[in-house]
């Protein structure tokens, strides 16, 4: 199965280009400690320099190398994205699985809750929560650290997964091999864990990939408004936000952090699209989950 998926994925030029770009971004972000510059020490003599060989993305108002800061910001933005997707999976998959397998009253309660969360103006709520939590010091969640922001965004990102997993379960429940397993005495839990979940992993991975892109956009947007990750910790969003006051005279401050967001999102979307085509048999199911 996975060899087949890989063969189909390889045939998708966008997915290959996306994978290469995204791997390069991840590699650069991982290797940034090798940079000769420190992301937080200011060098006032070097302030607001345009891009050059020494500083490929220029320097900021405190003379810090922008490339180094953008890459450190990438660590933050990408890890928030990964954490958001993990949290969304942890909430969404069990809800969808229980709803899809149980049906009846429990199903309808879980799905109404999902619908209610979908009807919330979620980004506005993220702004509200970000504005409250950035003032507050509590253990683990103090002042909008990476963990806080990931939890807050994750709490409003699980609905796609619960709908998708429910749709898969509803279809699979009726299939013959499930009936066979049941007639051999397989318990409900066994059927879910051994048969249905492994067979629904493809569409879940596709949705998780696209969800990663979405989470990165949400984090940058929130940080851009000032309600996400707080400076001096850099994230792509708050680097852009800091650029706002000066970008007319020093445009590189705004161009490069945004370019990184753009490149990550477009490559993630292409990877997601390639994976979606590669796990083709479930294309229909993904549609059911989306609408």
């Amino acid at each position, binding site marked *: 199965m996975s060899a087949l998926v890989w063969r189909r994925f390889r045939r998708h030029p966008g997915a290959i280009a996306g994978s290469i770009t995204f791997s390069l971004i991840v590699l650069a972000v991982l290797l940034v400690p090798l940079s000769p510059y420190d992301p937080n020490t200011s060098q006032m003599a070097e302030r607001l320099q345009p891009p050059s060989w020494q500083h490929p993305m220029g320097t900021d108002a405190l003379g810090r190398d922008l490339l180094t800061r953008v890459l450190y910001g990438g660590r933050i933005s990408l890890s928030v994205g990964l954490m958001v997707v993990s949290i969304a999976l942890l909430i969404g998959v069990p809800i969808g699985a229980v709803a899809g397998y149980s049906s009846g009253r429990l199903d309808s309660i879980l799905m109404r809750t999902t619908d209610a969360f979908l009807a919330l103006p979620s980004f506005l709520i993220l*702004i509200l929560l970000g504005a409250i939590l950035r003032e*507050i010091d509590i253990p683990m969640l103090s002042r909008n650290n990476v963990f806080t922001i990931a939890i807050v965004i994750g709490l409003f990102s699980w609905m796609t997964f619960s709908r998708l997993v429910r749709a898969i379960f509803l279809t699979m429940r009726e299939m013959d091999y499930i009936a066979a397993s049941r007639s051999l005495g397989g318990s409900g839990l066994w059927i879910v864990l051994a048969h249905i979940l492994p067979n629904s992993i493809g569409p879940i991975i596709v949705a998780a990939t696209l969800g990663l892109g979405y989470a990165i956009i949400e984090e940058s947007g929130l940080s851009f408004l000032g309600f996400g990750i707080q400076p001096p910790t850099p994230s792509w969003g708050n680097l852009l936000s800091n650029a706002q006051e000066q970008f007319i005279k020093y445009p590189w401050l705004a161009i490069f952090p945004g370019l990184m967001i753009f490149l990550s999102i477009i490559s993630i979307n292409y990877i997601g699209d390639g994976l979606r085509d590669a796990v083709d048999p479930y294309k229909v199911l993904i549609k059911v989950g989306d609408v």
Partner: protein
Amino acid sequence: MGSYIARRLVQTIGMMFLLSVILFALVNLVPGGPLAGQGQSRHVRPERAEQLKRQFGLDKPLPLQYLIWLVGNDWMRVDNDGDGVLDSYGTRKGILRGDFGYSFWTREPVLKEIAARLPNTIYLMGTTMLVALAIAIPFGVISAIRQYSAFDISVTTFSFAGQAIPEFWLGLLLILVFYVWLKNPFTGEPLFPPGGMYSLDSGFSLGDRLWHLVLPVTAGALGWIAWYSRFLRSSMLDVVHQDYLRTARAKGLSERSVLYRHGLRNALIPLVTMLALDLPYLFAGAVFIEMIFAWPGMGRLYYQAALQRDYPLLMAILVIGAGVIILSNLLADILYAYLDPRIRYT
């Protein structure tokens, strides 16, 4: 159909109730709570904080607070001065009777603040959506009809790029290019203004209004053009392979009539639902666009309210926003059932 609408209405009311509980819980259970923004200073003496709590009724159990928020407190005695003794009857009427309270910041009724800003947002985002659809529908349809042509490949590539550009970055880039870099060759002035709804120094003119709309609408619309052209392409592709199009061709109808009268009409139906589902994102986009382009609308109002932690204003916008989303979903479902006869009203 009548009973279908009635049942959906009942469901909608249930949903609104559920949402009001979620919203109320969110604001009241988060550490800090609604008082964190009141009194402006973060360092309020404990006895003063207790007094404020009683004044605002925050010492009562949460379910009672929720009830007061919904229906008001003019049926019970309240502690107006916060000294622990009940005084006169309350004056709040509750959101069910349209009382969203007063802004902590301006002390004006919240609804008045919203009413002043809402038309500006509808004007901006309405234009954005119209422009987006006017471009996306032909793009998507032609792209589907000529699948894998050069045009199709360009539209598909563009739609990937357009969906990946965050609107807050695009907004800054547009200001750089069209305000800072490019100049009008005759006057040497910037091509487009960097913000605002109209020029302050001149009277009303339609040209001036449109001139101010160009950049914010472009920044807001690009992502939607990308998304809807992709959506229409796939929805049109679904339709193109249907039997009824073959039937229409077999009847001898012109290709034009087959594609537009029979094809496009059916391809547009799913768009109705999509538009309703996308409403929250449209509003979220308004926050960025209005902030970057200094547009005096609801998005910026919400942003400022969040900065000042103006709870009554924030809650009012959230409740009204959620209400609008639910109602538009209901409307979309009814329209969908009406437009697509295959859907039975069950």
